[in-house]
């Protein structure tokens, strides 16, 4: 579903991604872990083409992102992205935040989009907030709305870029639960996270990155219980 080949990314002189190769199959949940500055976020942002790779190719369902030109918008409609800082639209109500993209992209009528949004809000237990503005919500609520906003486009892939890092500790759980429920439905997910317990429990596969490279990847159980590379061992000993 997602295929990354020989991906390199430079910010000016600094190389932040070094020859990354990875593949994510349909329905698979992959967690990206590693110390800050290891390139996890840059990698996930490249997959949504928010960062342009310096070299290398990324394929989404066989389509090359870099060669998609104007079709990039169409490709992105199948990829949901959840950000660390939520990035809800502050001038729109919760309902409008969720219905905006399905309506503007012509994917749904206004009625369909609103029905879909209301369903999503119900599953998030946030229906009473539908006419509120994002400014009045808590961080955990904002992030769940942001997830609902992405899901409203009925994407095939969901990307989570440190979705719980900006949250107060007591709100992390509610967002992780939504992500866990989503994983169970068979959604293809790539999750950049510092929540090791979550990665261990939910991810099918875990990729450990350091200094712009994939150092080690394995099933969640193997990587956490039997890490091979000394850098992985050192990292895990600090965070577990």
């Amino acid at each position, binding site marked *: 579903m997602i295929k990354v080949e020989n991906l390199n990314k430079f910010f000016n002189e600094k190389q932040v991604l070094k020859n990354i190769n990875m593949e994510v199959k349909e329905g698979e949940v992959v967690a990206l872990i590693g110390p800050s500055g290891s390139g996890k976020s840059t990698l996930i942002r490249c997959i949504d083409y*928010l960062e342009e790779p310096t070299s290398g190719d990324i394929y989404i369902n066989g389509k090359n992102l870099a060669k998609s030109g104007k079709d990039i918008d169409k490709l992105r409609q199948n990829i*949901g992205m959840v*950000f660390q800082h939520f*990035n809800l639209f502050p*001038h729109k109500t919760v309902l409008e935040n969720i219905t*905006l*993209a399905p309506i503007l*992209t012509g994917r749904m009528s206004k009625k369909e989009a609103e029905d879909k949004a209301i369903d999503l809000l119900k599953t998030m237990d946030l229906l009473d907030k539908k006419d509120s503005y994002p400014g009045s919500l808590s961080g955990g609520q904002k992030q769940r709305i*942001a997830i609902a906003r*992405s899901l409203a486009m009925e994407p095939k892939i969901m990307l989570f870029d440190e979705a719980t890092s900006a949250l107060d500790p007591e709100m992390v759980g509610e967002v992780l639960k939504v992500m866990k429920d989503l994983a169970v439905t068979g959604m293809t997910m790539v999750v950049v996270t510092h929540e090791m317990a979550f990665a261990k429990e939910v991810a099918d596969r875990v990729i450990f990155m350091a200094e712009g490279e994939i150092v080690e990847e394995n099933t969640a159980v193997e990587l956490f219980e039997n890490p091979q590379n000394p850098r992985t061992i050192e990292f895990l000993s600090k965070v577990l």
Partner: protein
Amino acid sequence: MEILELFVEYKQYYMIGIKTTIMLSLFSLIIGTSLGGLLSLLRLSKFRLLKAISTAYIEVFRGTPMMVQIALVYFGSYVLFGVDMNSFIAALIAVSLNSAAYVAEIIRSGIQSVDKGQWEASRSLGLSSSQTMKYIILPQAIKNILPALGNEFVTLIKETAVASTIGVLDLMHASKIVQSSSYKAFDPLVIVAAIYFVLTFSLSKLVGVLERRLSYSD
């Protein structure tokens, strides 16, 4: 109440002046803001040439006095193109071009004040760059710049007074006519100052109302 009597006596001149000043301000505001919006997009564009053209325009028009610009348009149109330009049109062109430069900078700062994450969130949902600009960035930018924009519009009304130097029958010109026919130097100026103030103050209030309307989401 000598001043009021003076105003009533020369009411016809002031009325013409008010009408001309309002027309000149209103049309310049519309043209200047549209052109300013365009210039700000050019300035933020990826194409170096467009960026350079826009930057040069803004610097030149901000860096020269409006009085010089108005004279250049009025006399220049004759010297360079042999066109005997109507003084109102010349003033309209000069004020619009001048205002566009300031508005462009205000809009640019407004666009840049919107968090980059807004752009990313919108694009990640599959919206195009023009949809993102129209539905996500500009509404937030306009809200942020409304006070500065209101300021610029007030300045614009006041600056139109320069049009009197090329013979446009605006408020300032009206007061000069009244000065010379009534042999009074001071009172006509007080009247004209009061009228300008009423115009700019009403505009400020109007912008204030708009600001409050746009703050619904706070």
